[in-house]
């Protein structure tokens, strides 16, 4: 087993363990942290595929930004785990059967007999100063400009959807407007009522 193979299997094992951890951990914070580990192991495997730019982006964007935000949200929310796990055990046998069938199928099909070196030649290694970023940039705005634009529209829709679902103007909420408070005059607030003085009871 060569060094790269060793690295590949090590990171693959970490990735699978961490992915299992995401769905089995009792504590949502642990789940989120396992997901971070999954992303990290994935990016290491991408690095082996010479996809350096994507590997670094995955760490920077997902691990660095998205997951940290996610952790914050998880910590803010009071998630009742026992209620979420209601009915979980009932579906476990069914889920395991489906998962087993899928795994067996994948082992049978995504193996060396279909994707081995006899079927697909090993891709040529790039030289050390080969720029991954430049290559991506070259096709992103030319060959793939149409999918790129649609992806941009999808992000726009996500923003519109998120804002329209969460932003509320509550008319019943009371808040202060200092500008108006300063402008208030005595006449606006105070009304002097002239009353007859009460007579002393006899």
């Amino acid at each position, binding site marked *: 087993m060569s060094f790269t193979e060793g690295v590949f299997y090590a990171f693959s094992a970490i990735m699978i363990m961490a992915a299992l951890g995401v769905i089995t951990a009792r504590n949502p914070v642990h789940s989120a942290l396992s997901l971070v580990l999954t992303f990290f192991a994935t990016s290491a495997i991408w690095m082996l595929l010479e996809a350096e730019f994507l590997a670094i982006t995955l760490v920077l964007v997902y691990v660095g930004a998205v997951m940290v935000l996610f952790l914050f949200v998880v910590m803010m929310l009071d998630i009742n785990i026992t209620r979420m796990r209601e009915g979980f055990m009932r579906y476990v046998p069914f889920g395991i059967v489906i998962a087993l069938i899928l795994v067996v199928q994948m082992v049978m099909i995504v193996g060396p007999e*279909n994707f081995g070196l006899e079927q697909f030649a090993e891709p040529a290694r790039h030289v050390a100063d080969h720029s991954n970023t430049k290559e991506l940039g070259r096709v992103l705005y030319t060959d793939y400009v149409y999918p790129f634009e649609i992806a941009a529209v*999808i992000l726009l829709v996500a923003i519109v959807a998120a804002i329209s679902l969460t932003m509320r103007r509550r008319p019943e909420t009371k808040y202060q407007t200092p500008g108006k408070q300063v402008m208030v005059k005595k006449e606006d607030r105070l009304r002097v009522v002239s009353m007859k003085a009460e007579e002393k009871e006899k």
Partner: protein
Amino acid sequence: MTLELLNYAVAWPEIFLLTMACVVLVADVYLDDENRNATYLLSQLTLLVTLVLIAVKATSASETVIAFNGTFVSDALGDVLKFFIVLIIAIVFVYSRDYLKDRNIFKGEFYVLGLFGVLGMMVMVSANHFLSLYLGLELLSLSLYAMVAFDRDNPNASEAAMKYFVLGAIASGMLLYGMSMIYGMTGSLNIAEVATAINQMGDTNIVLIFGLVFMVIGLAFKLGAVPFHMWIPDVYHGAPTTVTSYIASAPKIAGFAMVMRLLAEGMGGLQADWQGMLVILAVLSMAIGNVIAIAQTNLKRMLAYSTISHVGFILLGILAANNDGYSAAMFYTLTYALMSVGGFGMIILLARAGLEAENLDDFKGLNQRSPWYAFMMLILMFSMAGVPPTVGFWAKLAVLKAVIDIDMLWLALVAVFFSIIGVYYYLRVVKLMYFDDPVDETPIEKSRDMQIALSANGLAILVLGLYPAALMSLCVSVFS
């Protein structure tokens, strides 16, 4: 690469729609609630101009053009489907206004998301690449998830949106996994290149079949074919009725386009494999859809199960895997979208502030309240059941003929058997309208444009049933 290679002129309708959707989005921010009508009118104007652009493009240049470096295809099939998608969403928008106003959710986001959804459908219809197909699908789905959850104070809608989102994400995952398998084997994401690669490899390649299975599962989820139909009744029921009419109509046309692009164009070489899968899906959909619909007392749920059975019929046409079958399925899809939008339009017509009018009992004695709309509902129900002289009859006939032509007589018999079961629940609505006494005597008050559109919708189904030749020949010409 030069700009000429992009060939972007064939995408004018999409470009215009995207630009205008952004304009509507920005303009809506500056409008007060009293002027919200302007958003509506601007959205309708956008759809109208898009419709004209599609028609102009279809009549001026009907030959197949590949654009944007093979990610976009402009052909006769795409033009016709896009025309109907835009037309049907324009009808949905007409129906939506009063309903949304009654519920205090007459907001610009509905129209903005609706326009983006139309863009997603148009991208799907013209996809010539797995990537653009998937992105179009996600654009549509994301808009739909948000539209279902749009009525925030309604817990049913939130639940429906959550279910739709989770199941939709699983379906997208399935579809992507299938695509990645096909990509691994063929080395291309371009649908035309995938088709040639598959033809060279033959239909015994196990990896291709493995990928195909995942893709068919993804497609079945999105179309709502049994056994991947669980989300349909809950989403149709939980969503605001205007959103239901959106989901139930035009996205089915886009779904048909997706099946055509992936299975018929991309994986024609594996036809023997997917034909068998579609047979199973079609038979199960017709059986479960028609039988469970009988037990429903809620009209939206009933129409949801009826959708499932209609999807079964559409799949019948596609699995015939020849031009007759494809044109029959296309005719069925287009007319079904028209019937569906009319059916939910009737629910919207009877709904008012504080009443959803979604139960079968709400239709009791409609004939005494309004003979004209009872007649419209009668046409719609007859058409869904497939009773002549409505257009639903011709759609079913064309599909059954295509199935018989490929020597699958048993399948045609099964289809007829289950559609006869289906007639029961459609006729039950007619019985309630004509032979029962109304429980609710409130007069029907809806704005004039909605009344005209709904009447035109109902009459179109009757007129198309009397003169089906024009639409039928259009569907045939697309595939010849």
